[in-house]
């Protein structure tokens, strides 16, 4: 199979009538090595902005509770602004996916935001969840140790996995206020090893979880500054994680950064990350030659990710012309928008009703609510998880309603089938399209086809 046929399916968001697909792995690698054009064009929410929004929300809620004049209206507006930022995060992610010439950077961004799943459990945290996703972005073409640091030390991760409530049981703070009985919470420590680095099969024990939890104490989220390290909250003494001692007195943020780097560069992590990437991009049972080469590239480059991506893009076992996976709903919607000929600016110009109806709500119906994976292990990879009868019905209904709802200017259905599916247009779809009883259903058949959904 030609790379230009394979690439938009395996590494991108399908074909667009406006852009030629990448002709070689080098084209994709060059784009990944170059500047992040999509983020330059549509910059995301910063952590500082998110913290300010949270602050403002909490301040106005208090004012409303105290019946201060005008507070009810102001609070309502702030709530709407929080909602708009959440929806805006989705709209921006879709615009970038649709516009990115190779698609690979946006596919990687989706992969990593799922690897480091967070979810806002309360309204004031919503902008922070968006900011967490944005904070990962500069690191996804850099090194995994840096990416792990950006994720772990972000206020949203510390809040989501309860680190903000974990204190050294013998910390200064805990001893000063014995009445509060401050102590450890293992949540972040466990998921760091199980999900983010070593993998559940990795060589860690309960003792390692415990020791890491002790080492992580001291991380705090301040209203204005975000994440800080507060030595008074940290457990005194050294901790031993995977056989190596960290820290000592006084406790420092550098100790935590050290253990994160060590976890990131552990051979178990290289295998975990290599396999997860290969399973996500290629298929449920990637060849050992592929994952082995990716893991080797990872360790050889000390966790630099570009060499790993290079193996993924060029290895013969990643070029197989079969498509065992199903596009996840975000991927499916972005692919549909591209096929309909929208560019990023057009997606950014969708109004609130359109983005709710043809993206936000659709994602939920297809089983992938925006930034609301139910648990820290994120969304499933298996094709079967995304094609239950109701999920497929949601995709078909989306295919039927969305072109009209977004006022897409589409060519005749037969032509649409050729531009949307390119060389993958099957005989069956080509025959079915002209037999439809309406243009809308003919177009929907193309958008709902297995070739559109598979990757």
């Amino acid at each position: 199979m030609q790379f230009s046929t394979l690439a938009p399916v395996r590494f991108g968001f399908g074909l667009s009538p406006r852009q030629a697909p990448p002709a070689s792995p080098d084209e994709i690698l060059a784009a990944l090595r170059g500047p992040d054009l999509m983020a330059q064009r549509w910059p995301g929410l910063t952590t500082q902005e998110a913290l300010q929004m949270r602050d403002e929300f909490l301040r106005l809620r208090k004012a409303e509770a105290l019946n201060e004049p005008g507070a009810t209206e102001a609070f309502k507006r702030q709530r709407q602004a929080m909602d708009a930022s959440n929806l805006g995060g989705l709209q921006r992610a879709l615009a970038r996916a649709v516009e990115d010439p190779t698609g690979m950077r946006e596919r990687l961004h989706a992969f990593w935001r799922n690897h480091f799943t967070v979810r806002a459990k309360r309204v004031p945290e919503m902008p922070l969840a968006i900011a967490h996703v944005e904070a990962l972005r500069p690191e996804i073409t850099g090194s995994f140790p840096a990416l792990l640091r950006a994720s772990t030390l972000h206020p949203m991760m510390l809040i989501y996995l309860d680190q903000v409530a974990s204190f050294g049981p013998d910390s200064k703070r805990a001893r000063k206020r014995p009445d509060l009985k401050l102590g450890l919470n293992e949540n972040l420590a466990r998921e760091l090893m199980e999900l983010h680095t070593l993998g559940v099969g990795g060589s860690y024990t309960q003792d390692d979880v415990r020791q890491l939890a002790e080492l992580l104490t001291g991380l705090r989220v301040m209203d204005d500054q975000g994440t800080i390290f507060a030595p008074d909250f940290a457990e005194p003494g050294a901790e031993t994680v995977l056989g190596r001692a960290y820290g000592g007195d006084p406790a420092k943020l550098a100790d935590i950064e050290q253990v994160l780097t060590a976890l990131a560069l552990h051979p178990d992590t290289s295998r975990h990350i290599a396999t997860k990437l290969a399973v996500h991009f290629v298929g449920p049972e990637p060849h050992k030659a592929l994952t082995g080469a990716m893991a080797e590239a990872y360790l050889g480059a000390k966790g630099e990710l570009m060499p790993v991506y290079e193996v993924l893009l060029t290895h013969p076992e990643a070029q197989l012309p079969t498509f065992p996976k199903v596009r996840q709903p975000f991927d499916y919607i972005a692919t549909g928008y591209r096929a309909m000929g929208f560019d990023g600016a057009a997606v950014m110009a969708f109004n609130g009703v359109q983005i709710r109806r043809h993206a936000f709500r659709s994602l939920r119906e297809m089983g992938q609510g925006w930034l609301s994976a139910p648990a820290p292990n994120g969304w499933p990879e298996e094709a079967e998880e995304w094609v239950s009868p109701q999920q497929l019905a949601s995709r078909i209904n989306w295919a039927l309603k969305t072109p009209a709802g977004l006022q897409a200017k589409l060519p005749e259905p037969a032509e649409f089938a050729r531009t949307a599916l390119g060389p993958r247009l099957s005989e069956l779809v080509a025959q079915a399209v002209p037999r439809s009883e309406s243009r809308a259903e003919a177009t929907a058949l193309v958008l709902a086809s297995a070739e559109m959904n598979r990757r």
Partner: protein
Amino acid sequence: MISRRFFLQGAAIAGCSAAAHPFMSSVTLAAVPGEQRLVVIILRGAMDGLDIVQPYGDPLLAQLRPDFPVGPDKGATDLDGFFALHPAMVELMPLWKTGELGFAHAVSTPYRDKRSHFDGQDMLEAGTGMDVPLSMVRDGWLNRLLQQMPGARAETAYSVGDDELKVLSGTAPTLSWAPDASLILSSQGRTLLDMIYHDDPLFRQAASAAVQITDGGKTADDGMADPDSPEAMADPAMAQMPAGGMAAPGTPAPPKGAAGAAASLAEFAASRLRGETRIAAFSLNGWDTHRGQEAAIRGPATQLAAMVTTLKQQLGPVWDKTLVLGMTEFGRTARQNGTKGTDHGTGGAMLMAGGALKGRKVYGKWPGLADADLYAGRDLMPTADIRAYAGWALRGMYGVPVDVLEKSIFPGLDIGADPRFLA
């Protein structure tokens, strides 16, 4: 097929909590021969058995958990002089008194040490032991039961919502459906759909089930709200936030509404169990109480109690032939953690209810709470395999032979002596 009433109920559930309760809005049902009913509730997130069924007679419990309300002095209800029931479940006490409620304590799956929710839940639903790699675990133990039962009509199984429970997934055919996703294609469109999916079994089967259920379930006056109506346009995620603006999309609703949703789910399951359905499986999440457990556990505990009482009320006379099992992936630490919660543990408790139960008893061998008695010095020591209880239930209710249980349904299980918990 699907009643109008259910669609309306289902739409109400979906409207208020589909996003908030990705697991709770689903139920899977199957028909098998006989009159016995089995309801399996998977309690996701690791229910703290030591808080739900408090061994307050052991003075160590209060020492391990100084900030938790423990025992009848702090609001729990005494069960047998040693155990007490969590205050949020007090409405189940009448069932305890009539022998329709019981528990098994210090139980677990064979899953040990890594304490991962996700692997733990897979193992619970798969019903296999540690000797079977999780990657090999594809179908669930209830599904294997169906395959063993001649005359099982698994095609009468439905699920609503987004989650497919592994306990009933596998090769025995099941259908699943969400009430807000009926196909809107014309009949010609459906024919063509069938044609274009011809070469892809996954899409072909899902589309065929979608068409079948749409045709069977949707009628012109079924009362479904038009998804494009102005009312439906309001973003449900925001519209559902309480006035205080605290809950974000994806957050469990406050207990009252959530208990109502839990009751609706149980009511729907009961309506099916009154008909041809004999086995129902659904799940209730929210048990992962790492922080502020006293408040955090109240929601799921109230919902679980609401599910059980609703099942009893709605099942009427067939409640006598019903066994309800509430199973969780593992227990939680014996000690409270530094955030007045508990972390992932090992041994836990199972809830049992129904007229088919010989209740008013906490089954199992109590291991004790002294340091040396705890698993790895931190968790309640499991003294029985939770699968053995499920196995004896299947033996007693459906006559499944022990060797089939030990070899096919729960491979590797040593079922041990019958705890004799069926009436």
